[in-house]
C-alpha cells in the first residue's frame, strides 16, 4: 500500500506542480491588480537588483554612440551649425515676445485676484531602459522613492507630456507612456478649449475620446493638458491632431494625434514632484490635519500659514 501510494505520488508530482505553478501565477496577477503591499515590496526588491544592469548597459551604449556621433560622423556639421544659430535667433525673439505676454498675463491675473500658480518642483531623471514587450509602452528611470518620486506623478520634458509614474522602487521607477493603451489624460484642444480624454493607441499615436460632435476640431490643432486631474499641470503640450473621425452617428467624435515628444528617443525626463494648489487642496481634504490658528489684528482667527 505504501509502495503503491509512493508510486502514485511520483507519477502525479509533475502535473500537480504544473497546476500549482500556473494557479500561483493567477494569484500573483490578482494581488498585483489589487496592489497588495507584499507584491509591491517584492517588485521593488527585484527592480533594485535588476535595474543597475540596465543602467550599466545604457551607459555603455551611450558612450559608444557618443564616440560615433561626436568624432566619426562629423558630416554636414558646419551647415547644421549655421542653421541652428539662425533658429536660435528666431526662438530668442519669440521667447522675448512670450515673456512680455506672460508678464502682461500675470498682471491681469493679479488684477482679477486669481490665485497664483505655484510652479511645481521637479526631479530630473535619466531613462535607463525601455519596455521589453511590444504590447506595452513604458520606460524605466533612475529616480525612485528616495528622490521623492511617487506613483501617479506626472512625467514631462521640455517638449511636452511623457506619461506618469506606474511603479516605484527606492532608486528606480517605471513610467507609463501616454501611448500605452492603459494611459488616459484629461486634455483640451488649445484653440477651441474643447475637452476630451486622450488615450494611448499602442503605436506612437494617441487618440482623443469623448470629444463632443458639436465641438470643432481640425487637423493641426494642438492638444494640451486641462489640469483637471491634478497630477498634470494645466497647459502642457500633449500633441497635434493628425486625423479626425466623426463617424456616421453618435454623440462623440474621435481624433488621432501624434505626441509632441518623440517617445522612441527619450533620454532625460522631468518628474513633477511638487503639486498645484488644486492637488494640494485635494490632499489636504483627504488628510484632515489640524491647523494652529493665528489671531490677526481685529480678532479674526485664520489658519497658520504652512
Amino acid at each position, binding site marked *: 500500500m505504501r509502495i503503491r501510494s509512493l508510486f502514485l505520488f511520483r507519477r502525479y508530482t509533475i502535473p500537480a506542480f504544473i497546476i500549482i505553478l500556473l494557479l500561483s501565477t493567477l494569484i*500573483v496577477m490578482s494581488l498585483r491588480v489589487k496592489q497588495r503591499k507584499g507584491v509591491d515590496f517584492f517588485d521593488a526588491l527585484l527592480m533594485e537588483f535588476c535595474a543597475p544592469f*540596465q543602467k550599466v548597459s*545604457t551607459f555603455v551604449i551611450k558612450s559608444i*554612440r557618443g564616440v560615433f556621433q561626436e568624432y566619426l560622423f562629423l558630416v554636414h556639421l558646419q551647415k547644421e551649425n549655421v542653421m541652428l544659430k539662425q533658429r536660435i535667433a528666431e526662438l530668442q525673439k519669440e521667447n522675448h515676445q512670450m515673456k512680455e505676454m506672460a508678464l502682461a498675463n500675470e498682471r491681469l491675473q493679479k488684477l482679477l485676484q486669481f490665485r497664483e500658480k505655484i510652479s511645481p518642483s521637479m526631479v530630473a531623471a535619466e531613462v535607463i531602459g*525601455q519596455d*521589453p514587450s511590444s*504590447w506595452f509602452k513604458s520606460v524605466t528611470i533612475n529616480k525612485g522613492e528616495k528622490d521623492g518620486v511617487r506613483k501617479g506623478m506626472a512625467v514631462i520634458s521640455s517638449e511636452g507630456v511623457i506619461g506618469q509614474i506606474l511603479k516605484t522602487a527606492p532608486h528606480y521607477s*517605471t513610467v507609463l507612456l501616454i501611448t500605452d493603451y*492603459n494611459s488616459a489624460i484629461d486634455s483640451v484642444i488649445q484653440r477651441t478649449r474643447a475637452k476630451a480624454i486622450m488615450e494611448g493607441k499602442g503605436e506612437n499615436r494617441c487618440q482623443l475620446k469623448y470629444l463632443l460632435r458639436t465641438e470643432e476640431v481640425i487637423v493641426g490643432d494642438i492638444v494640451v493638458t486641462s489640469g483637471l486631474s491634478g497630477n498634470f499641470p494645466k497647459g502642457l503640450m500633449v500633441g497635434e491632431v493628425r486625423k479626425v473621425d466623426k463617424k456616421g452617428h453618435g454623440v462623440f467624435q474621435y481624433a488621432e494625434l501624434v505626441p509632441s515628444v518623440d517617445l522612441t528617443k527619450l533620454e532625460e525626463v522631468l518628474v513633477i514632484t511638487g503639486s498645484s494648489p488644486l492637488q494640494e487642496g485635494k490632499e489636504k481634504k483627504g488628510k484632515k490635519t489640524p491647523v494652529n490658528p493665528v489671531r490677526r489684528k481685529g480678532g479674526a482667527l485664520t489658519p497658520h500659514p504652512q
Partner: protein
Amino acid sequence: MRRIVVPLLLGIIFLTLQTTLLTSLPIQRIRPDIVLILILYLSLFYPPISGGILALFMGFLMDLFSGNVFGLYTLSRPLIFYVAQFFKGGIYLESFTSQFLFVFIFDLVEGLLILLFLNALNPGPIGHLYPLLFTFLLPQSFFTGLITPTLFFLIRKVSFSLFSHHEMGVMERGDRL
C-alpha cells in the same frame, strides 16, 4: 546550484539587452524577444519543475519592467514553457528551419494569448490593439525566429563550457532526454 543560477543570470542579461540595446537600434517593429528564445531553449533541455520556476521568474521580471498592469507574462511564460515541453518529443529541432518555425509559432501563440487576456481583463473594448497583430507581432515573431538558431548555438556553447554534461539542467527522476 550553478544549473539554476546560470540560466537565471542569463535571463537577466537577456532582459537587460532587450530593454536597452535592442530598443536603441532602429528596429522598433522587429525587435526580437530574446527572453522567449531562452525560455524555449530551457523547455527543450530543462526538467519541468526547475524550468517552470525559471520561466515564471523570467516572466515576472518582464512584467516588472513593463507597463503591464496585470502581470500577464508571469502567466504566459510558464504556460508557453510547458506547452513547448509537451511538444518537444515530437519535433526535430536540429535544423535551422525547424528551430525558426518552433520559436516563430510559439511567439505568435504567446502574442495571441496576451491579446486574449487583455480582452478578457479590460472593461472596455481594445479594438485598436488588433492591428498590432500585423504591424508588430508578425514581424517580431519572424525576426525572433530568425535569430533563434544563432542564440540556441550560443547558449549551447555556454552550457558546454560551464557544465560537465552536455545538457544544461538536472535530470529529474523519470525524465529522459
